[in-house]
């Protein structure tokens, strides 16, 4: 049996309170182990001058499923390198796959792993599209993965809420849906708004009635958050709030937090939800108000959804908002869809410009949020790939957060009103490696309920990223010296060394199966798929996920 010793690295492991100690790590059978007295390692890698962290975990990245594949179909012109096709990989372990803002699943896996990430979570899986989503994630090599299934715009949920159906029944329906789609959590997108758009409603505030079902986003959010709490799903409700991208939407965001009434929830890509209406352009940063709310509400965690300048594509379930923003599409084309009485999608290509006032301010708002929230355990580093920018920009983002003079240089290049007036200018905080490690691995693991990921304690999965110490944090985080996945060396200095199939994280909350009688009737009367064909079993999940391991996460049980 081989035991690998990673010798002499500087270990940063916030879950276990380790901040930069020089220590050895031992890896055996894919796990981090402690050696018994007298035991010796059989292999050794010298990590002098290196920083050692757990593998990165991206808990909100659009890596697979219907809208992601539509984005690829929409934008073949970005799958080029100037006038030429994107070159084939020289590494025989890699298959050809385009990159950029709409990478193929193969490239997604390679590029994440080369960057030190070992897990990624698709945040917007439609139940009707779950098999497809799991297949794409299964075809994303090396990375472990999971997905949050979308609820709160399905006509059945809204109808139950509207008709005052007993909460326990709604909770059971949520539990059934998570099980059927093999999800890791539940996301709500523009609560009620995607459905409302199908009824030709163009705007939905937190306390505004859905034009048909006469329920409000506040009710939708609270009900789903409570259902997940009672089901014991470790990741609380994942919320893409109302009025994404709208000036003044900070009010919706604060009302959404209030709607929780203390229930735990995760507010995603909050940068897009932290806008005020001050100033001559009636568009201003509300990062401070948002940060104050997050600081004051320990039940809330966030990820930022930082924007990065350049070409990308926004792929969202929020049909209502994407339709409204489609006039800003660049290039001028977009895809939208109403889907199966449960969801929607909108794919709008977009170019963030540093000389555009709104875009420049969006950039500043994202950074302000990172730097104004006190508790890094409740802030996760994301660009909402690809919506704010591709995940490959993470090293640059880390440098912006860790290096205030670099940040100031970048700010000075932006639209002059933003460069001169952004609150960001006055924020001198520089995040430490310890805080970055929290925001990129320890916190996401904790927020997802992954006990053996995101840290380097004995018993943890040996998902490890080793970075060569470099004052240029962008260079350092772009190309780790070594990346291990379950103890296997999968990347060395930016080159893929092995391509194991990643595992699938999911939860299986218990629920009362009596709900199936109603669901069977509902699908027969209004659906398009036989009820018995909806749920994905374990064997089928295995085949969808390319034979990767199934990684069920434990649920919590409410106790009085």
């Amino acid at each position, binding site marked *: 049996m081989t035991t690998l010793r990673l010798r002499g690295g500087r270990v940063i492991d916030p879950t276990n309170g380790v901040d930069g100690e020089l220590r050895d790590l031992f890896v055996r059978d894919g796990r981090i182990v402690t050696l018994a007295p007298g035991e010796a390692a059989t292999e050794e890698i010298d990590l002098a001058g290196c920083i050692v962290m757990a593998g990165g975990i991206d808990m909100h990245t659009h890596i697979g499923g219907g809208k992601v594949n539509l984005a690829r179909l929409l934008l073949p012109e970005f799958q080029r390198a100037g006038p*030429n096709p994107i070159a084939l990989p020289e590494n025989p372990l890699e298959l050809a796959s385009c990159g950029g803002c709409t990478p*193929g699943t193969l490239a997604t896996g390679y590029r994440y792993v080369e960057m030190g990430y070992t897990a990624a979570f698709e945040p917007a899986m439609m139940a009707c*599209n779950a098999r497809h989503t799991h*297949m794409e994630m299964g075809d994303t090599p090396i990375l472990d993965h999971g997905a949050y299934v979308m609820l709160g715009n399905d006509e059945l949920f809204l109808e139950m809420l509207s008709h005052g159906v007993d909460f326990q029944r709604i909770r059971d329906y949520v539990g059934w849906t998570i099980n059927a789609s093999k999800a890791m959590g539940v996301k709500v997108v523009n609560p009620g708004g995607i459905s409302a758009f199908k009824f030709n409603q163009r705007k939905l505030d937190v306390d505004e009635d859905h034009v048909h079902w006469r329920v409000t986003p506040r009710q939708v959010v609270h009900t789903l958050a409570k259902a997940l709490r009672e089901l*014991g799903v470790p990741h609380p409700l994942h919320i893409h709030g109302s009025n994404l991208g709208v000036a003044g939407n900070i009010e919706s965001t604060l009302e959404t937090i209030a709607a929780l009434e203390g229930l735990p929830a995760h507010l995603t890509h909050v940068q897009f939800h932290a806008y005020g209406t001050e100033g001559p352009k009636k568009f201003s940063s509300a990062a401070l108000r948002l940060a104050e709310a997050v600081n004051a509400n320990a039940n809330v965690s966030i990820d930022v959804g930082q924007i990065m300048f350049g070409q990308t594509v926004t792929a969202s379930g929020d049909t209502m908002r994407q339709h409204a923003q489609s006039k800003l599409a660049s290039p001028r084309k977009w895809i*939208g869809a109403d889907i*199966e009485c449960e969801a929607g999608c909108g794919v709008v290509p977009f170019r963030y410009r540093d000389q555009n006032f709104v875009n420049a301010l969006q950039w500043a708002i994202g950074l302000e949020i990172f730097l104004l929230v006190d508790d890094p355990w409740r802030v996760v580093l994301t660009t909402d790939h690809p919506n704010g920018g591709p995940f490959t920009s993470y090293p640059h983002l880390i440098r912006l957060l860790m290096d205030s003079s670099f940040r100031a240089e970048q700010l000075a290049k932006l639209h002059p009103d933003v460069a001169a007036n952004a609150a960001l200018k006055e924020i001198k905080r520089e995040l430490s490696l310890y805080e970055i490690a929290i925001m990129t691995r320890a916190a996401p693991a904790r927020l997802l309920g992954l006990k053996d990921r995101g840290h380097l304690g004995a018993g943890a999965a040996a998902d490890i990223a080793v970075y060569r110490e470099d004052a240029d944090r962008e260079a350092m985080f772009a190309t780790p010296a070594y990346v291990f996945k379950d103890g296997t060396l999968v990347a060395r200095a930016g080159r893929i060394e092995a391509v194991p199939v990643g595992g699938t994280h999911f939860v299986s909350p*218990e629920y009362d199966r009596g709900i199936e009688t109603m669901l069977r009737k509902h699908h027969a009367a209004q659906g398009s798929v036989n009820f018995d064909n909806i749920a994905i079993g374990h064997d089928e999940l295995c*085949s969808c996920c390319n034979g990767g391991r199934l990684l069920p996460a434990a649920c919590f049980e409410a106790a009085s």
Partner: protein
Amino acid sequence: MAHRLRTELRMSALETSPGRDAAPWTCPFCPLLCDSFRVEPVAGAWALTGTDCARARDGLARFEPAAAPAVSPQIDGIACEPEAAIAAAARMLAASRQPLFGGLGTDAAGARALYPLACRTGAICDPAGGAALMQGVRALQDRGAFTTTLAEVRARADLIVCIGSLPTEHYPEFLRRCGIGESRAAEVVVLLPAAAPLVGPAAGIDVVRFDGDLFDAAAMLAACVAGRAVGATAGPLEALAARLHAASYAVLAYETAQLPAQGALIIEAINRAVATLNQRTRAAALPLGGADGTSTVNAVFTWLSGLPLRTRATPLGLEHEPLRFGAERLLADRAVDALLWIASFGTEPAPPTVNLPRIVLGHPSFAAAVQGSGTVFIPVATPGVGSAGHLFRTDGSVLMPLRALRDDGLPTVADVLQRLTRALHGAEA
């Protein structure tokens, strides 16, 4: 509220659901992928109940319920062991400088297995029906689209306008899947050229005729919807545009395979009308197409590589050529030097007769069509009959599970392709 970690992970109730054993059959023979019919063996044939769908019946007639097909792999029409056929196929691909992978009649698993082989060989991949597929892809690449799905149409549509043809001829269950015949069903209109006969059930369906071709009609309809004057001949289209505006949820359906050459222009006009309607009311397009695995293979290749079909991995990189990489043209021009043809459903066109080395992975009935020299034939299981599998429905959002009706002992396309890829490693080593 206090919480404690539940240490024991129990199998979810779904895993033990009795319904799983009696999983419904999904018909793989058209992209509506209906799963509400029963099929059972009766007197040596498959009997369908719950539908009179000719397409399902015709597809099933290619299979006998009882016996496994007595067709073995063949090289040059002579029966051989599977290993010999795989080895011969690997030699053909190893010797080829530019192979073409055509037909592509397979499911998601087959497509996932095909991509590594396509990368290794630099093959151009174009399905049977590639021209129709590319009309939709090119329209999408050009302007995008706003589409809907079957459950939405059934629940929500109050007006369905079928552009250019009534889909019931090729999609016999179309109206039923759209909820026609149920309470609060949509009105159905078909927009047809003046001279075209209406094929299919006409009862309750409004026919709007137009002079000229479908390009003109679609463009004029889009213009009428946008409120632009289009001349005296547009009366019926203006009336139709008014109905579209008055509808609360209008659906514009079209069959990609029935569109003429350059049909992307018609799709673009339809999408334009939908976009205009969506400024004030609600509307969406519903494309019908992608049968025999075409749209499924396209989706899988798109997610793996980032580019749709009609792409190849050349020494320069991944090249996507929606016009240049059409299979028929490449074969006619002798621009390729080997053909791998996949046709596992039995409903695809027969493998082209070409004077090239051919590898055919097909339904056993294709054995007779590939007797010539320089041909390897490997019979394969049909997803949804001889094996389980997955296919995308016409609306693209739902990946339907397919259930095997019987075990016919044949390998799946994915099995054969994985073995072929391994053998190719050996042949090139």
